[in-house]
């Protein structure tokens, strides 16, 4: 079956998380992504969690997820011969994505001006912590630090407590998504309008421009100069906020105008228009809220997450439950949508992975191949594609080029 991006050729010089997250989206939807790894491999191969907790370069869960459907060749970019091979491969690529520190590509003789002279229609995408220019350009960054400087972290907290970041590698993963959009737009410009160009993606700016509160907050500051204070984590009205239940926690949105629906869901319809509970003034009274908790807590603690979700749905209420990862993998909804398909990798055997981000029925994304072993496609690319003889390959290997 023809895949959505089946004719897109990507030369992938990225490593760690953000860059590979970008090229993974392209690869899952059909692009031919050729991953160029340093001789010792993408350092993400050393990121945990590992299969059965055994550290091994072919068993990093992060690496395995981020590199599905890609091919891998090894190449020493610091050698002149290595840089020339990149030039050779760039001649034939639509897109080159890289995530080195700013200036490294120029230092290798592979800056945009050089690459453009080889392939004028090439789209070069550079993903870095703070972008290719500006005073922070060379600063070190981590997921935590980039989110704290650029993102709306200050409001992820309760009054008087320290702010908490987003989990895991989300800041870098998100920057990868945003860069994938930029890459496709650049590709449209190249394919349909003949425009080659260099795209500068900054992880910091993917947070400073995040619609998660930050955009509104920046313009709000221009509009009236005030800063949005720490919010009451539970919000107005009752029942409202996160409550414990039988097997975990649920997120309830049942106060104010929704209160009558809540009363019916609880099979206490007489409360629906009881002025003691239902009026706007009562709903905004914090003492009344505590009083209502005395009724609501015993009711909700009897219900499981899934029972509550079903009741809330039936009642027409907005609702959530704090799923753990175990909940996700066992949930009938995600199962029905086949969202965690099995991928068979030689180093791990079949393991369930996170599926493609959207369902595109005419050109379905999916897993054609697991993440590559280090240099798995050296022969295919250097011999089959670039026409080197097997003897050349031996020589290149001996010289430390591949």
């Amino acid at each position, binding site marked *: 079956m023809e895949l959505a991006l089946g004719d897109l050729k990507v030369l992938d010089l990225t490593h760690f998380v953000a860059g590979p997250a970008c090229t993974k989206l392209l690869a899952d939807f059909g692009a031919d992504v050729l991953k160029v790894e340093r001789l010792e491999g993408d350092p993400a191969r050393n990121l945990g969690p590992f299969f059965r907790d055994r550290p091994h370069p072919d068993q990093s869960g992060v690496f395995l*997820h981020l590199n599905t459907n890609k091919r891998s060749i090894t190449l020493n970019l610091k050698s002149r011969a290595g840089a020339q091979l990149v030039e050779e491969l760039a001649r034939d690529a639509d897109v080159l994505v890289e995530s080195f520190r700013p200036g490294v590509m120029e230092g290798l003789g592979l800056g945009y001006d050089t690459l453009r002279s080889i392939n004028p229609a090439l789209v070069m995408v550079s993903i870095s912590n703070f972008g290719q220019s500006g005073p922070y350009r060379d600063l070190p960054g981590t997921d935590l630090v980039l989110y704290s400087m650029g993102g709306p972290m200050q409001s992820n907290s309760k009054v008087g407590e320290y702010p908490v*970041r987003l989990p895991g590698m989300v800041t870098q993963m998100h920057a990868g998504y*945003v860069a994938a959009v930029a890459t496709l737009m650049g590709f449209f410009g190249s394919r349909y309008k003949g425009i080659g160009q260099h795209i500068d993606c900054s992880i910091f700016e993917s947070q400073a421009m995040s619609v998660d509160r930050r955009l509104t907050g920046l313009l709000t500051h221009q509009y*009236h100069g005030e800063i949005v204070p720490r919010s009451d984590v539970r919000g107005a009205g009752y029942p409202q906020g996160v409550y414990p239940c039988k097997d975990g926690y649920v997120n309830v*949105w049942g106060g104010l105008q929704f209160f009558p629906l809540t009363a019916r869901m609880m099979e206490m319809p007489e409360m629906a228009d009881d002025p003691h509970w239902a009026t706007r003034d009562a709903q905004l009274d914090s003492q009344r809220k505590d009083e209502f908790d005395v009724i609501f807590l015993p009711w909700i603690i009897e219900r499981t997450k899934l029972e509550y979700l079903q009741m809330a749905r039936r009642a027409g209420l907005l609702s959530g439950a704090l799923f753990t990862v175990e909940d*996700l993998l066992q949930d009938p909804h995600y199962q029905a949508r086949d969202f965690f398909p099995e991928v068979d990798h030689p180093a791990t055997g079949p393991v369930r992975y996170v599926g493609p981000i*959207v369902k595109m029925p005419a050109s379905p994304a999916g897993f054609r191949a697991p993440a590559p072993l280090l240099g798995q496609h050296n022969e295919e690319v250097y011999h089959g594609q670039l026409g080197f003889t097997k003897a050349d390959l031996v020589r290149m290997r001996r010289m430390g080029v591949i």
Partner: protein
Amino acid sequence: MPLPLEGIRVIANTYTWAGPYAMMMLADMGAEIIRVESIQRWQWNTRGFMARPTKEQAAVLMGPMGAAYPNRDPGPRPWNRHAMFNSHARNKKSFTVDLASPEGVDIFKQLVAQSDAVVENSTPGVMDKLGVGYEALRRVRPDLVMVSSSGMGAAGPYAGHRGFGSQMEDLSGFTWLRCYPDGDPADTSLSNHSDAAGGAGIAFAVLAALHYRNRTGRGQWVDMSQSENLIGQIPDAVMDYTMNGRVQKSIGNRHRSMAPQGVYPSLGDDKWVAISVATDEQWQALCHAMGNPAWAANPRYETSLGRWKNQDELDEGIGRWTQRRVGRETAESLQALGVAAGEITSDAELSGDPHLWSRNFFRMVDHPETGRHWHPGPLWHFSETPVEFRTPPVLMGEHNEYVYKELLGCSDAEYRRLEETGHIGMDFVPEVV
């Protein structure tokens, strides 16, 4: 030079944040984004939180974010003045139509017939019920690309599930992983990261499906689940479960393998600084910045494993140092030594960030109903086709004449009739408050 997406017309039936954010991305690179709005009904949490708040409500009740109007004044048309909309609405067009009437459905279909894509984020089933679902629209535009974004997707047992972005984050396993590690999850404040992630996912899907159409002539309907899209950003936790059976919990600001990492108090009220130490050299640099205190010379801290095992002690010692210093100075002194560090910025601090200003991030916009302000700008820098604010944040119904007369060929008399029947306008009907 043309922009990369010039010539692509997308009809945007999108509200709140994820859909409109995706449309901003495409609009910035030249796609013609036509918002579908109605003067008969208020779109929840899109052009503000209320259609017509009083000045008093804006001044007292709504809080700084709710009352995000210039000078907290809602003005005569508050829907054109709210920051939650105006911050992403540049480069777009808007027209109004009442989709609840058969005539409105017909107008919508005529427009779709001339468009490449439709993007919508209503609850699954709503578009079908209105008569503008994919099956109906493909009849007027066989190669249409339609992307439907919803909380849990359009198929499956929870397809009709309703919730805000924060509740999708709960159902994605995201909230569980980001709450206070040692506290009650009920203390977790809302986040709307799923909207940001969803925006990127939607924009990606539109482009991928359009490219497929260009190559094959075939359109399609794309089912996007915001929760699935977000799970795509926590694969490490999922893989730890599928490979090791481990159910990860939140570790707060710490890192799963390197230490110390955390958010530490700074001088001032509610001021914090983030510090990440990855290597032995960076640990030595941090000790140096702290003035090599005696407590830090403990040999247990020399290796990364030793630091990781003793991070409670490290955090305490580092906190004692940071709390006497201005956060920005702490961060800069560490950055100069190659240690990743940064302030937790408020909107005011980020608004003055020298790096953003040096990269032409803020753009002066002259808007007919809000005046001149600096708006947050490009999400990326394109060397040949830079993001420009070609038009200011769009007013509701601003492009009615363009859509009805130029695209649909309405006569002046027909246009007037559609104004009288409640399709065309720039103000909500009085019943909308």
